[in-house]
């Protein structure tokens, strides 16, 4: 058991420090994911404005 733990410890000491890449990876995942959600919200807002404007136009009497 002790030799097994020593092996694990030795392997962990050799584990590269890649935390910076981990953070960068999840930042990019967040940017792409949130970016897409923002485009959805932006398009939705614009379409709601269009609907309101067109409904107002429709209610008005034609000249």
């Amino acid at each position, binding site marked *: 058991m002790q030799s097994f733990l020593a092996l694990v410890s030795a392997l962990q000491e050799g*584990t590269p420090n*890649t935390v910076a890449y981990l953070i960068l*990876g999840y930042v990019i*995942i967040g940017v792409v994911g949130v970016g897409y959600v923002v485009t959805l919200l932006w398009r*939705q807002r614009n379409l709601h404005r269009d609907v309101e404007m067109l409904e107002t136009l*429709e209610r008005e009497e034609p000249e």
Partner: protein
Amino acid sequence: MATIAKNNSTPVALTMLTAFTGLMLLIATYLAFIFAPTEITMGDVQRVFYFHVGAAWAGALAFGVTVYAGVRYLIKPAPNWDILGHSSVEVGLALISITMASGPIWAQAVWGKPWTWDPKLTASAVMWLSYAAYLMLRQGIEDPDRRARFASIYGIVAFASVIMTYFGVRFAQETIHPVIIGPSASVPDTTIRMTSPMIVAMVFSFVTFSFVYGTLLWHRIRLQNLAERVNALKMRILNREVA
């Protein structure tokens, strides 16, 4: 399936689904960052895989739904099938973009370079371009019926790139892309090369991204319905002006 919406308010079910998906994402993040152990040879960057693979799975699911919608449209043309197929491609492309953007970060840490023309990576790039072209080509066709017919056929044919990316490259001997769940030509055994907590985090990520896809798809369909409503209003006003 959703029809052309006249009510602007978000359905309670969609609000609840969105909140639930957000909660799932938080749990998936906890499992990826804290619950799953650090992989010994790659270090912490391996944790990128939980979202990278989850998004890849959900992207493939999205493109599969587009095939289904395309087949249904070709059997019996109805605008709702076209809306479903179109929306699914857009959401799928966003999910595959997550996979394509996060992969090079992992590759830079592990391979020392962000990209190689490995069969798996090349097939993924072809898949991404195929579906980006789907969205661009749709915009070039004005007649709605023609556009929907074209998009249905394209959506079915483009799925070949998904099959090539996820299954075809398993026959490639020379791929350096990791194969987590075997077998493949490069890794012939069927063992899953992950510890139990890693499997839990990965499976949870698969489920979470399925919910992310479903939630985004519902929002995207509602957006398309709103766009159809705008078009219908424009036509009504134009016709009234002409009359």
